[in-house]
């Protein structure tokens, strides 16, 4: 453990970078330097976490480094700490490595922005928060990171805060996330009250002592947080709007890392979730529903980033579905590969945007491959990975989930399968519209279109390489994660025997799943088994359909829109989620507040308060009339007084 104590550098290097850029950015560092500082910060973290990764890969086990006590809570002390085990090591590697590339990309992307240092401060700060979340060994630190990334996401979405849409999107993302966090916080409280502790390991040890429904409740409440953070139904509405942020932000936060925090959290608390089959079911259904619904929504969007955003939401649904199925390792592997190819897609989209000066509408692009060949090629790699075409990473991470679902739940499989087909369709719709197809570019723009500079293309190429090769490391990753996610392999001091028995029950659903872990075997099997062929054909079918509609225009998309008008409208309006939420929670609540203010505070309470003042004044005015100035009246009142007082005594005595 001693030789791992250097791991504190993992979260704090980005923090230090953030503080340096934050305090000195404007006055001292200015444009290129702030970005370089941030890149160095995150690169140090990446190097450190990769070395920690290698360490844990070689020696195994888990390490709980307590940095300092944050707050005592009776007998329990919440501490700031680093839990280094395969799961967190993988996650922190994903975060830091992908961040490093995105940071490098961002130095190019953000060139010339007047708030350049601010951007890198936020970004570094985000990485810090994300790592705090990742490396936490207790729920409170997790929550700290959880809210921290929420804040940074908010700030980065609202980075172009002078735009109304950006500010509103940021606002929306924060509030929606907060709804999830409310549930999450209640879950934490319930966990503390139930277990008397918030450290994962202690909770895992105490799971058998708690009642089943409490475990379920805790798991569901915590999952509520994940639903918010990972943009699952019904708290998904913020993610597409979050695309108002700069593209690196979309890549880093809203594709690769933060939104995956929910998935990570469920995996991290796997013993808890696995102990409750109800919780797993809920995770499964929410994930599946999101995967499908998001895919349908993605079909008809016109904004390049939004399309990718819906695909993100959809892919997160796959991850949750995997976890709900009990395939935590597959879920995490999909997380890693998705992080790679989705970052790639976003960065490629960012590169496009730089090239054509931030025109987001795909209908105004076209033939971009001519102008930006590297971008187009890398985008294509990413799209193929996303579509699940072998041998790209997405195939190795996504198809096992779909196939496994077939063995467990038929309905889930159907939805996931359909979603996969839709995914392939819409991402290639995007590809064809933007990079191929006819020439719809604005002539003025066209004259300026050019390939992006190397500091943007190099990350693209690296990530594209990752998207190609990563899938072949499937077995390595699954084995690597096993000490964290498989009860059969977990060490006794990580999760005790009693809890393991509970977990086995929950995970039993995954037992009859037989998907080869070795990538080559999997590739061979899926190309031979009917299920695998079906999946592959579906994906290819989606691509082909996109090709004939948008490239060859054999079928007119107008005709499609007209034919399936109700569906088109439903999808285009995002299943009316936004409208309903807006009507009830935004507009309705605001109106209700105003009404309540006028009725409650203004009319009733202040009515009573000011009313009593008015009544006093009126009483004064009325009593004042007794002082009429006439002696007769005075003496008359006096004699009435005498009469009354005498009567009191005469009647009493």
């Amino acid at each position, binding site marked *: 453990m001693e030789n791992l104590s250097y791991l504190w550098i993992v979260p704090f290097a980005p923090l230090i970078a953030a503080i340096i850029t934050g305090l000195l950015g404007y006055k001292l560092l200015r444009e290129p330097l702030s970005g370089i500082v941030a890149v160095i910060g995150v690169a140090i973290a990446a190097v450190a976490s990769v070395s920690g990764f290698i360490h844990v890969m070689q020696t195994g086990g888990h390490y709980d480094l307590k940095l300092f006590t944050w707050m005592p809570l009776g007998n329990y002390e919440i501490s700031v700490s680093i839990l280094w085990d395969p799961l967190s090591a993988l996650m922190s590697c994903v975060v830091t490595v992908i961040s490093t590339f995105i940071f490098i990309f961002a130095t190019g992307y953000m060139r010339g922005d007047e708030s350049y240092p601010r951007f890198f401060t936020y970004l570094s700060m985000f990485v810090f928060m994300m790592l705090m979340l990742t490396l936490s060994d207790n729920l409170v630190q997790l929550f700290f990171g959880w809210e921290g990334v929420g804040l940074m996401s908010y700030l980065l979405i609202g980075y172009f805060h002078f735009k109304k849409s950006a500010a509103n999107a940021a606002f929306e993302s924060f509030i929606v996330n907060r709804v999830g966090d409310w549930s999450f916080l209640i879950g934490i409280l319930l966990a503390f009250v139930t277990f008397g502790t918030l450290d994962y390991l202690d909770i895992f040890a105490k799971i058998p002592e708690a009642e089943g429904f409490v475990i379920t409740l805790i798991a569901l409440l915590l999952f509520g947080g994940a639903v918010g953070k990972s943009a699952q139904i019904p708290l998904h509405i913020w993610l597409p709007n979050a695309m108002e942020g700069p593209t690196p932000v979309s890549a880093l936060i809203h594709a690769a890392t933060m939104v995956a925090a929910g998935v990570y959290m469920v995996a991290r608390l796997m013993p808890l979730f696995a102990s409750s089959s109800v919780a797993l079911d809920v995770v499964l259904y929410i994930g599946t529903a999101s995967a499908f619904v998001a895919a349908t929504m993605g079909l008809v969007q016109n904004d390049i980033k939004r399309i990718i955003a819906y695909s993100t939401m959809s892919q997160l649904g796959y991850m949750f579905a995997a976890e709900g199925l009990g395939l935590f390792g597959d879920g995490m592997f999909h997380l890693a590969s998705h992080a790679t190819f989705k970052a790639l897609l976003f960065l490629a989209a960012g590169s496009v945007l730089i090239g054509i000066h931030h025109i987001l509408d795909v209908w105004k692009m076209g033939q971009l491959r001519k102008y930006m060949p590297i971008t187009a090629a890398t985008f294509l790699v990413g799209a193929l990975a996303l579509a699940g075409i072998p041998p790209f990473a997405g195939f190795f991470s996504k198809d096992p989930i779909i196939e496994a679902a077939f063995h467990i739940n038929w309905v889930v499989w159907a939805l996931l399968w359909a979603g996969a087909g839709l995914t392939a369709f819409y991402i290639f719709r995007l590809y064809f519209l933007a990079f191929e197809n006819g020439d719809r570019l604005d002539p003025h723009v066209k004259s300026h279109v050019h390939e992006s500079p190397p500091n943007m293309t190099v990350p693209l190429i690296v990530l594209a390489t990752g998207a190609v090769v990563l899938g072949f490391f499937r077995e390595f990753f699954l084995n690597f994660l096993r000490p964290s996610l498989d009860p059969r392999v977990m060490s006794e001091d990580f999760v005790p025997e009693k809890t393991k028995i509970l977990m086995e029950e929950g995970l039993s659903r995954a037992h009859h799943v037989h998907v080869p872990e070795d990538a080559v075997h999997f590739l061979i099997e899926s190309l031979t088994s009917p299920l695998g062929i079906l999946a592959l054909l579906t994906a290819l079918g989606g691509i082909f359909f996109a090709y004939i509609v948008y490239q060859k225009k054999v079928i007119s998309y107008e005709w499609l829109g007209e034919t399936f008008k109700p569906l088109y409208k439903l999808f285009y309006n995002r299943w009316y989620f936004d409208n309903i939420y807006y009507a009830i929670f935004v507009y309705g609540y605001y109106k209700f507040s105003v009404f309540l203010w006028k009725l409650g505070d203004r009319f009733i309470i202040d009515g009573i308060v000011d009313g009593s003042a008015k009544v006093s004044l009126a009483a004064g005015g009325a009593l004042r009339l007794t002082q009429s100035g006439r002696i007769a009246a005075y*003496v008359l009142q006096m004699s009435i007084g005498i009469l009354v007082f005498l009567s009191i005594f005469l009647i009493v005595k």
Partner: protein
Amino acid sequence: MIPYEYYIALSGLLMVLGLIGIIIRRNIIAMLISTELMLNAVNIAFVAFDMKLHDVAGQVFVFFILTIAAAEAAVGLGLIMAIYRLRKDVSVDTLTELKL
């Protein structure tokens, strides 16, 4: 022998008449006269009690009441003269500038 209680009741009656006088008279001189009536009424009670008690302290008190009645009359009439000089009127209606 008349019971002394009658004298006291009589004194009460005269006093109440004086009180009514103050209330109903519209002439401030008559008002002042009514206060004289009130003060005077008490005298009867004092003397009656004296007779009952076989004492003379009550009669001594009557002396003081007379003094005070005289003093009030003097001051009151002075005020009436001043008021008359300022407003040329002795009706209670003039005495309503201070009010509310």
